[in-house]
């Protein structure tokens, strides 16, 4: 125990463990398998990074989110640990060769599941002493999870071939069904399960229903003037992010930005940074915002739409109050937008008409994948989803479609699959709807849903809008507003400063010169 704490201080520069980290690390050090359900940003990396240092040998981490994985490796390397690399489609074959050649000089290798399936990579890993096998985003292993990946089903075979090292499965969301699948497919032994309590006692949860969208806007604006910021506002649609950001600006909120998946990568990164660095204090966004973002001082999370599942709701409100300060989660529902999420679900999947058009006959057979993408101009997520299944069906060879006369079979299979997933989603949404319409304690309902111990929350000062009126929360907390976190002077300075001054302060500042701030 002392030992790990010392390593934490010496190698990572942190004074203490975050919730769950120590339990997880100790379990894995004692040779047990571990399943950990932790929200994004809670410090999952450390849970295997630290044991990797103690174990020696090689730690293999499998993750499906290739670009997040790259971020992660960049971060770790930037923090001084260079014995880390990742192997994915993002690196060139040459770089891959280099890494494999020098594999013994690394203590952590991140891999996408596709790469792990390649025989020569697997062989190379087998030749090493693999001391820990980490499965990130482990919910992908379950058909009940929202991101089922077949290549995850093969992970346990690989683990066996690697000599059966201890296994750590990590995920941010898991219903009991998903949890069970993870344990079963990874054949976990004597496993210890750590689940961050979904019950975040410093978050007051409120759900308010108004009649019309108009009333919703008025109510929202009113609330925004009374509550603490920084705030994340989930609007449901891309259009909504722009609409509400404008609305707030008109009401005199200066530091508002919007964020959605349709923005360029660069713009998304900038807005994210502005928010993290307190240059912007309200962000209106779709659920594209939040992945991998760690900002401790978010005071409020507001939903202007119905999240698509209870898991998603809990994950999104969980971004509030990471610093343990009292925070607010408010969902504003208008009776009239009840049907919106359903049409959303329908739009989420590739539309049957163009599936038919694209996949029937020999229309795209032999064409380059990129060419077809340009031709159909499909929404990116849908395209990725479709590609995923087409790849699974083995009809893509070296960037070209190659159906070998199986187009109709493939089409039928894919259609069936999408229908099933669509139905699953509707079930999930109904559960969220029930949560919204229940008159009982929200915290209670959520704990029950996740199979956590249901406690009596009536003792809490601020539990939820079923236990204490939302109005009273706002009224009583109003006096406690902290000064805005915002560096207002940045904006006012920037108006006077000429572009030359600013460029000079970026590039010509000498040591000892003051920051222009």
């Amino acid at each position, binding site marked *: 125990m002392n030992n790990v704490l010392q390593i934490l201080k010496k190698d990572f520069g942190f004074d203490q463990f975050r919730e769950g980290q120590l339990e997880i690390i100790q379990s894995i050090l004692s040779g047990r398998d571990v399943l950990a359900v932790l929200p994004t940003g809670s410090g999952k990396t450390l849970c295997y990074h630290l044991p990797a240092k103690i174990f020696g040998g090689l730690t293999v981490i499998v993750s499906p989110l290739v670009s997040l994985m790259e971020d992660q490796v960049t971060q770790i390397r930037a923090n001084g640990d260079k014995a880390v690399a990742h192997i994915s489609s993002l690196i060139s074959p040459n770089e891959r060769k280099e890494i494999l050649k020098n594999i013994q000089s690394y203590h952590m290798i991140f891999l996408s599941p596709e790469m792990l399936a390649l025989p020569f990579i697997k062989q190379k890993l087998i030749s090493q002493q693999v001391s820990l096998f980490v499965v990130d985003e482990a919910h992908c292993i379950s058909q009940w999870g929202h991101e089922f990946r077949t290549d995850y089903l093969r992970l346990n075979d690989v683990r066996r071939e690697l000599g059966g090292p201890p296994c750590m499965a990590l995920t941010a969301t898991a219903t009991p069904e998903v949890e069970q699948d993870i344990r079963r497919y990874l054949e976990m032994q004597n496993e210890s399960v750590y689940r961050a309590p979904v019950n975040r006692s410093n978050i007051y949860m409120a759900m308010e229903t108004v009649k019309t969208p108009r009333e919703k806007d008025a109510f929202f604006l009113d609330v925004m003037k009374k509550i603490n910021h920084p705030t994340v506002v989930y609007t449901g649609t891309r259009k909504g992010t722009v609409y509400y950001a404008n609305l707030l600006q008109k009401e005199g909120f200066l530091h508002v930005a919007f964020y959605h998946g349709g923005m360029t990568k*660069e*713009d998304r990164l900038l*807005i994210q940074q502005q928010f993290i660095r307190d240059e912007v204090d309200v962000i209106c966004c779709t659920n594209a915002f939040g992945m991998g973002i760690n900002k401790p001082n978010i005071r409020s999370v507001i939903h202007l739409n119905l999240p698509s599942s209870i898991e998603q709701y809990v994950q999104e409100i969980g971004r509030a109050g990471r610093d343990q300060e009292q925070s607010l989660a408010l969902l504003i529902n208008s009776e009239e937008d009840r049907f919106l999420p359903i049409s959303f679900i329908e739009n989420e999947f590739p539309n049957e008409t163009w599936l038919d058009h694209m996949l029937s006959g020999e229309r795209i057979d032999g064409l*380059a994948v990129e060419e077809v993408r*340009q*031709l159909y101009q499909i929404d990116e997520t849908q395209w990725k989803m479709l590609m995923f299944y087409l790849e699974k069906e083995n009809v893509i060879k070296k960037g070209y479609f190659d159906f070998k006369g199986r187009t109709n079979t493939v089409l039928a299979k894919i259609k069936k699959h999408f229908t099933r997933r669509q139905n699953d989603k509707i079930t999930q949404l109904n559960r969220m709807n029930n949560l919204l319409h229940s008159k009982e304690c929200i915290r209670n309902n959520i704990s029950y849903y996740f199979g956590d111990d249901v406690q009596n929350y009536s003792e809490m000062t601020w539990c939820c809008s079923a236990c204490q009126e939302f109005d009273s929360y706002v009224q009583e907390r109003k006096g406690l507003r902290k000064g805005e976190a915002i560096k207002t002077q940045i904006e006012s300075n920037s108006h006077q400063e000429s*572009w030359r001054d600013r460029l000079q302060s970026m*590039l010509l500042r000498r040591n000892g010169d003051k*920051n*222009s701030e």
Partner: protein
Amino acid sequence: MINGMTSLHYIILQTTYAIQGDRTINGIIHILRGKRSAQTIQDISLFQLEQSAAILKNEPKKYVDAKANELLENGWIVENSDRGVNLSTVGNMAREKLLEKYNIPDTYHGLKYEWNHSSYYFWEQLSLLVQTISYLKDKQSAFIPVSYDRIAQNKVKQLLQKYHDIDYIGDQVYQEIERVLSNKTEKEATLFVNRLTSNFRTGRTFDQLSSIYYGDRLYTSIVFRSTLHDMIAKANEDRKNNPILSYFQIDRDGTFTITQTSTVTKKLFEEGYSLDEIAKRRNLKHSTIEDHVIELAIHDPNFNFDSFITGEQLQEIEKEMKRLNTRKLKPIKDEFGDKYTYFQIRLAISSYKGEWSQ
């Protein structure tokens, strides 16, 4: 409506004006969004739309379609019997009115710098370099980079290693940027600098900076890119005085206008396969292979298409084209009857580089 007209409307109007009824609205949108197809590539050179090629590449298709529809519904753009589009009188008046407001700076060149994303790569490397310098000057070496791109990161690393001295490299980058910006308007220069991220201020998005340009995000981004294009051009013209800016690697896609699939066709063709054989071998339609040839005829100076059409035949078709003053296939084909195939006429049209009377 003219008050609500955005630069996006203007760009569609202006392009419609250039094309004069020879293409459908979709054809126009493909050019503006930089669709990689033989047809688009052919059209860009045919109608001399090199400047605006791919100018809307970051705009979602749905959004562009919606704006084009507004123009059609309001009768600024009208469809002719072939579904080709023309400006109506009011449409043309609107175009003239907006000409100045949404003037696309001369230094902007879509085909050179947007089509192949080279201005994007350039910016990625430049902004990462500036950010890095600014952090290193404060002895902060861990920060969230504005770009995770490997090539960008390597380039920055190489530059830092090459020059060692952070103050020196800061001075040098400053000089190179300042030289270009000092020839720009205050607005343009301010816009550019406000996009940069440093250790004390995150760069702003186009949307956040659009108040300088009528709240028009797209136009703001065009002005910004025109500065970038200028910077790249200047750096390439005078590499000696721009050691840093000319060090960036921006030509990632190789020969940029030629699609990958056409390159495959070219290879097979040069190995001696006929178009039919190539089509069979690649499991593609014959017409698709023809598209590839057209694309190569336009953009690959080394591609020899003599075996499809002789110089005399070319001239004959060109003469007819000029006489009819059209670039449309059908009327030309009708004129010749069976003498030439559609494919040959297309080759002639697309390889024609001469002047048009308007």
